[in-house]
């Protein structure tokens, strides 16, 4: 089966550090919020691991950001400016995952180097990478040293407001990440997308072979 190079090395490095980091953040986040219910780590250890992992993730985010800012691959994130086209594609993709996939119908989306996200992915990754992840980093840094950032925290309405925003995004990721992992198994084989995120190469159907 022909394959095309869709995940450059910096993106793969970012992705796997991010994946591991988010799992650690979710786990330590659960531990911090539900001590007494989950007692794998002490509260203090969970705080320290959560903080350090958070800073690693912030640094890692810049690998992703700088790579796309200084490469023409940023086109993969270009939004579809025609709402009609966008929603038509989104509907088609949702229909595929919700019905067509069960009947063995072909995926309506065809991956290419500059168009690797289907419209559902494109919409959600833009919200996640441009809004939720930066917001989570921002609120996390504020909560890391509440006293140092007290001016900003008070301007936002106080530590409870900032924490609530942080927890709401945590809740989103607690639901999104298992979903994301499952969707990664819906390639032409269960492990196709996983392999492509490791090697960089995505296998495509015959008629798409020249897409590299």
């Amino acid at each position, binding site marked *: 089966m022909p394959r095309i190079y869709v995940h450059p090395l910096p993106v793969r490095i970012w992705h796997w550090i991010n994946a591991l980091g988010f799992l650690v953040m979710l786990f330590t986040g659960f531990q911090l919020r539900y001590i007494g219910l989950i007692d794998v780590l002490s509260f203090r250890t969970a705080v320290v691991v959560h903080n350090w992992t958070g800073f690693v993730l912030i640094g890692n985010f810049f690998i992703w950001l700088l790579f796309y800012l200084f490469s023409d691959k940023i086109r993969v994130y270009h939004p579809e400016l025609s709402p009609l086209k966008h929603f038509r594609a989104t509907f088609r993709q949702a229909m595929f995952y919700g019905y067509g996939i069960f009947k063995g119908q072909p995926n309506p989306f065809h991956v290419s180097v500059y168009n690797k996200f289907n419209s559902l992915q494109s919409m959600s990754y833009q919200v996640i990478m441009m809004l939720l992840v930066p917001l989570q980093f921002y609120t996390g840094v504020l909560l890391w040293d509440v006293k140092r950032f007290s001016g900003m925290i008070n301007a936002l309405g106080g530590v409870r407001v900032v924490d*609530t925003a942080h927890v709401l995004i945590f809740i989103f990721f607690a639901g999104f990440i298992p979903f994301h992992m*499952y969707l990664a198994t819906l390639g032409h084989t269960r492990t196709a997308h996983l392999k492509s995120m490791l090697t960089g190469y995505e296998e495509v159907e015959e008629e798409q072979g020249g897409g590299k």
Partner: protein
Amino acid sequence: MYGKRLATVVMAASFAVAMAFFLGQGTARAAGNALSPADQQCLACHSAEGFEKKLANGETLSLYVPGPAFAKSVHNAIGCASCHADITLENHPPLKANIASIRENQLALTKVCQSCHADIFKQYEGSIHAALVREGNQSAPVCTDCHNPHAVMSKAEYDAATGTPCSKCHDPIFKAYAVSVHAKAGLGCASCHHAHDVSAATTGDRLKNECLGCHQDVLAAHQKWLPNAAQHFETVSCPACHAPGAKLKVDLRLYDNAGQQRLVEKVGVPQFQSRARFADAEGTGLNAMALRSLLRGFNQEGIKMTLRGRLEASTGPGAHRLMDKSQAIRNCAKCHQAGASPFQSVTVSIVGPDGRLVRYGAKHEVLNSIISVDSIGGFYTIGGTRIKLLDWLLVLALLGGIGGPLAHLTINWYFKRYAKRIGGDEDS
């Protein structure tokens, strides 16, 4: 009748002789602990134990001055006449009882103290004790409640071990303090609370600053192990961890969110208690909605009020039983878990016009309510005061995140099994 008049005449005559002596030699002070001749004349009568007089209100005022104690006191150097300047040959002893009550006598003597100790009196006037006196509290201490004017000691001679004079009124606190690490180190009440400008313990940062004044490197020491140490210093009172037996509570304090100033009740127009009672329709403590409406009432033009919490010992004795740092609480879970004991008792407070806190009880559920996100914006403890609604949202997210894929897998399996029957491809 004749005998009583004769006694009065004899007393007046002997006093006249004494005063003549006294006025003539007023400046001739005796050296060391010896009494001046004039003071000896006063003490000729006043050193008799049981010497007393009936006051207009029926109280008995002791006129007894223990001679040896006075001789040793620092006031010996100025002599009787310096303070009792109102006493003249003509009016002493007075024929009529001209002192209304012991309290009135004490208040009058306070002015005498002020004439020499003006700087100290100024400090006292800013104290919680003076504020209580101004409010008409009959038990609030004036100078003579703490200092026996005829046996005034130097500061160094106050006995930290007995807590005198503070323990006269604050005995339960002193008993708790007596077993503390500070008492064992020989510190007295004034070491932290100051002798004259005593402020309400729960107002402002003064007491915390007293702790930090001696324990100067303590923030750096905490930062080595305690995450967000500076924030803990602001939100958690020192005794909350260092008096390990103390029962803790949360005090939510009204602040204006713009200027970061603590809200102070205006003199003469107390509003907090009445507004809190109005908001708390059931009278069982403020709930989240009541708290929100109370805050709205205090919002001024363009200035929004918010509540900041502080974790503190719920009783004075508890707060004073400070122990060695080896016994301090280091277990984060003491506060950072659901249902933690410090969050079971909540008050809302404002600074009263006299500097003391005016408090009103609130239900502990306010700390876990989504309605309080805005009103208690300034207080949050990870785990301990987490919002319950968010717990349910998390459950829903997990159900969606894990249940969604499971449902999808199940449907996929169902389709595979019955693919032929419904006309799909078997290998989907």
